């Protein structure tokens, strides 16, 4: 056995492939804001799931089907964008968020934004100049924050500091997604940065 084969065997033993882990393509579509299977989503929408100690990803959440500009009552709080011209509050139309219930359990709610993008679906537009520094203010302690421009060919998020208040120097315009995650789940905020 040569070294590469030995390495392959050792790595396989260290982290074996788990073939029965839970795939959930509908969850992918929801996170992306697509509604490919409305009938199935409607069925899921009728279900409120009580979590108990189960992790949020293991259960089908209740699904909203609206662009929640003002923030859903049980969803993540809105974020604020600060620019040189003022502040604007934006809701998260795409999220999977858990809420504590009175009996000590939790329910999970997910939202599906439908069509989003610059000029679409109520996506807020922010006018900024290249080089301007904008601030994102979150109302929950984030575990991760990233900003992506999905229409540019590479949707990978630009890592931002894991803080409630982060800044980003504008280096491009267009449709942007602020990816966030916190103790209660994940939330994406959509905004269109328009040339000033």
């Amino acid at each position, binding site marked *: 056995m040569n070294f590469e084969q030995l*390495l392959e065997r050792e790595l396989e033993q*260290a*982290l074996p492939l788990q073939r029965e882990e839970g795939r959930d393509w509908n969850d992918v579509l929801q996170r992306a804001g697509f509604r490919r299977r409305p009938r199935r989503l409607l069925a899921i929408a009728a279900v409120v799931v009580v979590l108990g100690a189960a992790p949020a990803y293991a259960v089908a959440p209740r699904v909203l089907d609206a662009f929640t500009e003002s923030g859903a009552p049980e969803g993540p709080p809105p974020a604020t964008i600060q620019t040189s011209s003022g502040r604007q509050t934006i809701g998260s139309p795409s999220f999977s968020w858990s809420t504590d219930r009175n009996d000590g359990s939790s329910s999970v709610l997910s939202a599906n934004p439908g069509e989003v993008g610059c000029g679409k679906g109520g996506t807020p537009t922010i006018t900024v100049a290249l080089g301007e520094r904008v601030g994102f203010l979150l109302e929950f302690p984030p575990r991760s924050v990233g900003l992506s421009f999905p229409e540019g060919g*590479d949707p990978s*998020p630009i*890592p931002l500091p*894991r803080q409630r208040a982060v800044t980003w120097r504008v280096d491009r315009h267009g449709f942007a997604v602020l990816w966030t995650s916190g103790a209660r789940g994940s939330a994406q905020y959509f905004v269109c940065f328009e040339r000033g």
Partner: protein
Amino acid sequence: MRSSDDAMAQLEELYRRRYPHFVRLARALIGSPELAHDVVQDAFAAAVRSHDAYRGDGPLEAWVWRILVNHARLRARERAVAALHGDVAEAPASNGSHGGDVLAAVAALPERQRLAVFLRYYADLDYRSIAAALGIQVGTVSATLHAAHASLRHALEEVTP
């Protein structure tokens, strides 16, 4: 020319066929099985949202691996910061066997070498796909893996009685 529906169908097929591999790579990079699933979901959501922007000038799978690696790096970085502040408990990615030594040795490699090793052995990608996923030349992949193998051979010889 690839149609939008074609790309979506291919993304779904790739997700269903290779999901365990995506989760394993994310877990190797992040160290958390729970976050690994979340990262894979987010990475595919990003790919779905941007599938119109996929130009079809390289393997779709490599494009998705690149998105996944970047999402996982983001989460790993945030998790490392959280660990510094005591917000999360660092869980070992290994099962505690001798394999833990090799994972520790891989974890000590420079980032590009570490990514190349994981993409080679956990994603089963060829050199061309690794190059596309990491945005480097195929020759650089070869040199990177050669350097990684040399470092790992040395490190594992030290821990093996």
